[in-house]
């Protein structure tokens, strides 16, 4: 039960990152490898605003989300749009987004330097004990803000005009074009929303880990794993996959071995892919002759 609780905050972070992968994949069919580095960028911006400029936690969160969302739009406009216009094969898109990741990471290295920065938590990290269980206010903050953002996303997708357009494009891109939906715009919206979610995940995770220029690779990969376990492109699956992965990691790290924790995660992933190739929570049959 304690492992379950320990897994929740990191699970919420993974869920946010998984959402950002799934959203872009659903809306534009692109696998965006720079998503992890948007997390890193969010963490650094949050660090700069909150720690160095002494802004409050909430404004720091929103300003960096907005800023990283702009970066997302720029990536979509200057890199994804020309690739799409040229009908580039998916592998070229993968390399292009990996290029974005390399650039972002190294610009961060130039700006903030190679040293790990400590992001001191806005709330206390002293555990509250409830009988045999303990949880820190820090963890509660992560889980509440995480779930809050997921609800906002859900509202945005279901109720707003932009969100509905995005879902229409996700269902049938060509059909959406025929209905007069600007797919270019909905791609931009998807990239902005994904980048903002990533930035939020970055600020939330920053007090747990150090903020470093290469933190994005690990978190990005885990978020991708969570998205795939839940079924890539499937929003509720991404959330479930994130929490599932967080809890599995907490158990694997606590019960088996912390060094092999990630290896266990990836072995589990390959097993899941082998047995259910389209994720745990999505039903899809394989085409056969």
């Amino acid at each position, binding site marked *: 039960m304690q492992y379950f609780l320990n897994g929740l905050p990191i699970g919420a972070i993974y869920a946010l990152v998984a959402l950002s992968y799934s959203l872009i994949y659903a809306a534009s069919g692109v696998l965006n490898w720079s998503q992890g580095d948007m997390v890193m960028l969010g963490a650094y911006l949050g660090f700069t605003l909150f720690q160095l400029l002494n802004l409050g936690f909430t404004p720091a969160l929103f300003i960096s989300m907005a800023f990283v969302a702009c970066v997302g739009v720029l990536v979509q406009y200057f890199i994804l749009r020309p690739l799409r216009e040229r009908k580039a094969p998916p592998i070229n898109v*993968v390399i292009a987004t990996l290029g974005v990741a390399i650039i972002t990471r*190294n610009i961060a290295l130039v700006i903030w330097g190679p040293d790990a920065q400590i992001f001191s938590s806005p709330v206390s990290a002293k555990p509250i004990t409830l009988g045999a269980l303990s949880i820190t206010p820090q963890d509660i903050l992560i889980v509440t803000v995480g779930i809050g953002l997921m609800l906002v996303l859900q509202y945005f997708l279901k109720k707003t005009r932009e969100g509905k357009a995005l879902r229409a494009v996700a269902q049938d891109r060509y059909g959406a074009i025929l209905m007069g939906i600007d797919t270019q715009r909905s791609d931009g919206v998807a990239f902005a929303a994904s980048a903002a979610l990533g930035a939020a995940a970055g600020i939330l995770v920053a007090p747990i880990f150090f903020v470093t220029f290469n933190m994005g690779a690990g978190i990005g*990969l885990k978020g991708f794993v969570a998205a795939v376990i839940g079924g890539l492109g499937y929003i509720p699956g991404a959330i479930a996959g994130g929490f599932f992965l967080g809890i599995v990691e907490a158990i694997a790290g606590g019960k088996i071995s912390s060094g092999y924790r990630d290896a266990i995660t990836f072995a589990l992933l390959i097993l899941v892919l082998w047995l259910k190739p*389209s994720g745990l929570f999505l039903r899809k049959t394989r085409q056969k002759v």
Partner: protein
Amino acid sequence: MKGITKWRTYGILGVLLLLLFLVPQVVSNIYYLHIINLGGIYTLITIGLNLLSGYTGQVSMGQAGYFAVGTYVSSLLMMNLKFPFWAALLVAVVAAAICGLIIGIPAMKLSGPYLVLATVGFGEIVRLVLLNWTPVTKGAAGLTGIPLPEFMGMRISSEKDFFYLIFIVLLLGTYVAQRLAKSKIGRTFTAIREDELAAEAMGVPVNLYKISAFVISAVYAGVAGALFGSFAGVASPDNFTFDESVAFLSMSVIGGNRSIVGAVIGAFVLTFLSEALRVFQALRLVIYGGILIFTVIYMPKGLYGLVEQGQNWFSRQFLAGKKDYSS
């Protein structure tokens, strides 16, 4: 006409071989020769990757895993059990091939992002095992003092010796890959890439071919790994990260992943580029990333696409009207 083309090809090949033979005589700077040798090792991996992802359409971002298996298996056999280099290389290749088989089996059901992630997972598992299995792999510190290859009383020690060793293996590897690509197997790979269902309907044992492609790419990376261990003399998990796998995939795509020559071009160009950009210091990788993005947008077929365009232009200019229909 066909005979002339054939002799012309042999002539070009002969000149290329001679030039290749002269490289270490002309390039006296040890550092440059070292980079060339490293490029040769990476080319082997990229050739395997092109057969896997360019021809068969199965994208792998875990080639560093097979590379690592090749390096560690051969190095440990030479260090602990005093295996001669060639025997160690052979066992390392078998080990890498088995890994290819293990990952090929779940991979045959997968495609797109799911396949990519399975291969990433494999690469990460290998790296984490190397990092944590300290009694055997020495953990993060890695292996040091990996023995030099010895061959019929000759010790391969200088950069020049390694150049000949690596390039003989590379020429052999390129030849085999080229033959493979032009054979029935290569055409079947392409058929699977273009339309798996149609290939299956034509009676192609698709799964067998897909797994074979994984094993072949693993063999290439395994050979490269065994060469790398002795060549570098040291190896640690840091040599086999996800970023390395990404670099190999970039070489494959930038060079042009639907031909073997593309692999050779991509691997050498990116290896040299990444060294040449060192003058920009901190901005080195920013520029590298920019070049990657620019190339995949504006040269969708990679650098080999440019070569093809050049060839077409050349034949239009000089062989106009003398079109060779025989080949």
